[in-house]
């Protein structure tokens, strides 16, 4: 399936429907003003739907497909980032960052050894710089007692 304007238009219509479905019954229990909480979102949904219709009818603008292998790499990076986000607090900044840097670094074509060294240094270095140096608190995670 190629990405094109028609697909974008369909997505816009779905989004507009979503906004309308979850927005049409927003009512204020006590109202002091003529315009309630649902007017603005519904207005937006209307405009989004109009844009969507225009895109669906006009179509065209096929997006060039990614070079072979790119989609897999991108999907792997999204998975790595989701895992990074999920384990950020639990594993702590140093370990989770080192793991993420290793995976993402490999995806960007780094060699094993160099990437591994870089990843570990990155985890420790950024932790020292931000947590110790700049007072931006980062999670210590399972290394809690060591740090």
């Amino acid at each position, binding site marked *: 399936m190629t*990405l*094109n304007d028609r*697909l*974008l238009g369909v997505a816009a219509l779905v*989004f507009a429907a979503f*906004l309308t479905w*979850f*927005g049409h019954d927003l009512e*204020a*229990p*006590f*109202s*002091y*003003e*003529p*315009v*309630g*909480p649902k*007017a*603005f*979102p519904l207005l*937006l949904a209307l*405009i*989004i739907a109009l*844009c969507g219709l225009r*895109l669906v009818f006009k179509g065209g*603008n096929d*997006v060039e497909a990614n070079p072979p292998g*790119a989609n897999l*790499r*991108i999907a792997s*990076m*999204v998975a790595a*980032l989701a895992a*990074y*986000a*999920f384990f*950020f607090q639990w594993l702590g900044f140093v370990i989770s*960052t080192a793991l*993420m*840097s290793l995976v*993402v*670094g*490999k*995806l*960007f*074509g*780094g060699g094993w050894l*160099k*990437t591994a060294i*870089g990843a570990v240094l*990155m*985890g420790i270095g*950024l932790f020292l710089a*931000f947590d110790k140096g700049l*007072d*931006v*608190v*980062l*999670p210590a995670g399972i290394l809690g007692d060591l740090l």
Partner: protein
Amino acid sequence: MSALLDHLSIGFGVAFSWTNLLVAAIGSFIGTIVGVLPGLGPINGVAMLVPIAFAMQLPPETALILLAAVYVGAEYGGRITSILINVPGEAAAVMTTMDGYPLARQGLASVALSLSAWASFIGSAIAIFGILLLAPLLAGWAIAFGPAEYFVLMVFAFCALTSLLGEQPVKGILAAMVGLSISTIGVDANSGVYRYTFDIPNLADGMDFVVVVIGLFAVAEMMQMLEKLLGGVSIDVPKSERKLFNFKELAFTWWTTVRSGVLGFCIGVLPGAGASVASAVAYANEKKITEGKDPNAKFGRGDLRGLAAPEAANNSAAMGSFIPMLTLGVPGSGTTAVMMGALTLYNITPGPVLFDAQPQIVWGLIASLFIANVMLFLMNVPLVRVFASMLSIPPWLLVPGILATSFIGVYALNGTTFDLMLMVGVGLIGYFLRKMDVPMAPMVLGVVLGNMMEQNLRRALSITNGDLAILFQSGITIGLWVAAVLVAVVPPYWRYRTRKKRENLAAQA
């Protein structure tokens, strides 16, 4: 005149504290690096630093100085790669490649670098002078704005941004509307109703703009970088040649620089048209002016004036784009929208009232912009080699570094896993939207302005008990509607006409 001096003394009083000078220097340095690295532009750099500055508990004026220095620094940095390797480091430096790279090929790389730094500096200086003159006037005028005027002003800002940014305005409108709908998430301030929160407590306060901006500009950008694997580039700045431009070259480009600086400033003040538009217009304008008069002009083949024009214009436009944000509270570009979002983290609403209530922020920022420019000019001539060497950082080190820094920033806001997951989700959606040429700047503007826009609309309609006529009553609202329609219609029509003309020419040939 005395008011002007008062403002300057307040401003320089703030800017000349040791902390703020140091912050301006650091910001300039980081900004230049951000500008040098392809794929990172001012908006990415500013977005990544917003939450970090906030988490470091910098006072608001200091944080704003840091962000502004990064912004201006990126405009300086973008030209380095344009000249040396013909790859613009950020969007506004595209025109700099036209004559900058040919000059470098002719062995004048260092001259081109120093002269373009000088042009950037003069452009910024002109813009700062313009801000000093224009900002208080605009703020004084806007102080009379009621909710209806504000609402229409924001409509105008959206029209300008969507129509000037892209070939397909419908996608710009779509982006703006999606941004505005993101801003409706959370408790409605007027009625206490929960909107689109789906009983998730983390969404009760709405989606943080930092989460959205970093998702769109850091995460999605890195995904796009993964499409084409690029190695680190090592480039040499030739050593044996003259480092600095000479007086003759300065005199040769002087009027071009001044003209382009003024032009860039005027374009930058308009919402929507930012540094990229300004540099393109200034280049075309200089080309037209000089080619008529000077038979030796060699634009596109290494003319120093073709180098000075876009650089003076993009820097003065970047500075000029602070005016709508500071004076009206309505940012005209993606980057200033992010800065405005940063101010709202501090519960500061930019706008005409700010000039009276917290003059130290406004004038401190403007004075710091000037100081940052002096620093950038001084830094950029001797340190070009250091900045250029940043390009040799391989992506397998750079990208994880950018991602980790983005995560640090988002985590610093609320310290929740939820925000991090949300950011990755936004990044994924942002990636697909980018693939389909949906512009990101209107979306950011929507997220930042959404609440204000809705509140002003509802307040205006409360005055008349729901009668829409209030939106068309005062002279200011009517003027703004007319301007909005003009800006929405004229540029696309103009583009359509030039395209038709080009097609006709092609058909004849």
